[in-house]
């Protein structure tokens, strides 16, 4: 089990991004982490992977554990070796390198079983198998996303962290990516899926967390979340009842008066 307990993250010593969040990814499960832009989803993944310092961030409280062992003080490369691998937001394939080189990089910490893992990845992504010498930058968006996921799989991780894999992809491709996530999970890898596309994320995951400005506000089975009115309104973008919620256009006068009086 990969677990975060009461994690607090501060950027540049002043900006508090995570205000004590906890979440758990059980072995072999898919867990979704949802939330608006800037809520701290990516920061959560960074904290797990140990790459906060790149952006001048620091974990000031809490712990990240893997099977009960703390991993939050370890280097990024150690964490990968222990079996937690991440595909970053925005694909981030190395555009100048070939498909195969990108995958070989993924195997940096796990070189001995390079062939085996490469076969597994090519099995998941037949598109990539057809063009190992292709320059990654010329792949289509969907293929790049597959390469990014494949690269993360090259270390044969027990837990795969995916940051917005559906970002900027056509609905059809989103579905394809979704199926792949299911397949990866079927092969035995736990997945922590961070998504804006709540619809997609909640249909594959067993459990979902919702993060809002650095705090976990909801923590329920995915099926329940899908039915939740608030989730439908805020994360699926549907106005439901509408009227009982204050409109931003109306709220102003009240606030304004308050301000003049104070």
């Amino acid at each position, binding site marked *: 089990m990969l677990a975060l307990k009461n994690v607090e993250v501060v950027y*540049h010593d*002043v*900006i508090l991004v995570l205000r004590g969040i906890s979440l758990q990814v*059980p072995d*072999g*499960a*898919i867990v979704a982490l949802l939330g*608006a*832009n*800037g*809520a701290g989803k990516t920061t959560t993944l960074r904290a797990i992977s140990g790459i906060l310092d790149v952006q001048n961030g620091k974990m000031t409280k809490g712990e990240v554990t893997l099977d009960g062992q703390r991993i939050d003080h370890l280097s990024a490369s150690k964490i990968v070796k222990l079996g937690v691998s991440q595909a970053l937001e*925005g694909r981030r394939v190395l555009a100048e390198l070939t498909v195969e080189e990108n995958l070989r990089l993924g195997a940096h910490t796990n070189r001995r079983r390079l062939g085996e893992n490469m076969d597994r990845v090519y099995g998941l992504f037949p598109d990539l198998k057809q063009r190992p010498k292709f320059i990654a*930058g*010329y792949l289509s*968006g969907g293929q790049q996303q597959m390469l990014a996921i494949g690269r993360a799989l090259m270390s044969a991780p027990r837990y795969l962290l995916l940051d*917005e894999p*559906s*970002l*900027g992809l*056509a*609905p059809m491709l*989103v*579905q394809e990516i*979704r199926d792949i*996530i*299911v*397949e990866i*999970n*079927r092969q035995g890898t736990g997945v922590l899926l961070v998504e*804006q*596309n*709540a*619809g*997609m994320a*909640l*249909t*594959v*995951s*067993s459990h979902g967390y919702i993060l809002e*400005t650095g705090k976990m506000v909801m923590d329920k089975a*995915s*099926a329940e979340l*899908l039915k939740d009115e608030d989730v439908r309104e*805020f994360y*699926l*973008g*549907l*106005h439901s009842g509408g009227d009982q*919620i204050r*409109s*931003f*256009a109306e*709220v*102003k006068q009240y*606030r*304004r008066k308050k*301000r*003049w009086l104070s």
Partner: protein
Amino acid sequence: MRALRLHEVLPAGGESGRVILEVEDVHLSFAGVKAVDGVSFRVHTNELFAIIGPNGAGKTSIFNCISGVYRPQQGSIRFQGRDLLGVRPDRIAGLGIARTFQNIELFPQMTVLDNLMLGRHQHLNYGTLAAIARVGKASREEARNREVVEGIVEFLGLQPVRKSYVSMLPYGLQKRVELGRALAMAPQLLMLDEPVAGMNLEETEDMARFIHDIRWELGIGIILVEHEMRMVMDLADTVFALDFGRPIAVGTPSEIQNNPDVIRAYLGEEHGTAPAGGGAA
């Protein structure tokens, strides 16, 4: 002391409902990847025009095209009748287009006041030699523009932090300062790139009120890019929905909310179906 109203320090947008920005069939791509693909729209004075769409849909790219940071390969952008393509960003700013940025682009080593004074750059009429001597004109101009800036400080409720360094301010206040800096430019068109991203409800409400007031007091055109749907739907006159750089719908907030294409772009195709089996362990 009577509270200053914004229009007492800044020029108004002029007659309501006049077209100020025309974007026509703009195409922009980076190394073959299409970021903006055939986008057209018009913004009027006294209009709050919202652009929505998933991440990577090309919203910020449209701002960058209007600001002159990117040059679209095809199409035209006209501001108050003037073609903007190929015009340098600083000139475009001078024509009366101001913006805020998705990831705050304030000058962190300067005070709030200095950041706002930077917004007044084009309104400070004195040369380098006058700046060095600092007599007469330079001094007068600094004082005159400082008054405008103080008006904006008051409007945005920034008085307590006027002389604080921006880097020391919390995120929500920084966003507000950035809005102030854009206002200080006395724009005819204001472009706001995710002004409430990462804000809590109270900060979001404050920001909504500022945007609302700016629009009613100044009557300038405002383009708003935002993910916070509630705010967009409450404030906007017109909503323009984009997906993968392509326009999918334009209309009033209620029209957009009920547009099936828009719903699909946000929800993914299978929303509503039961969770697929594989994931549930």
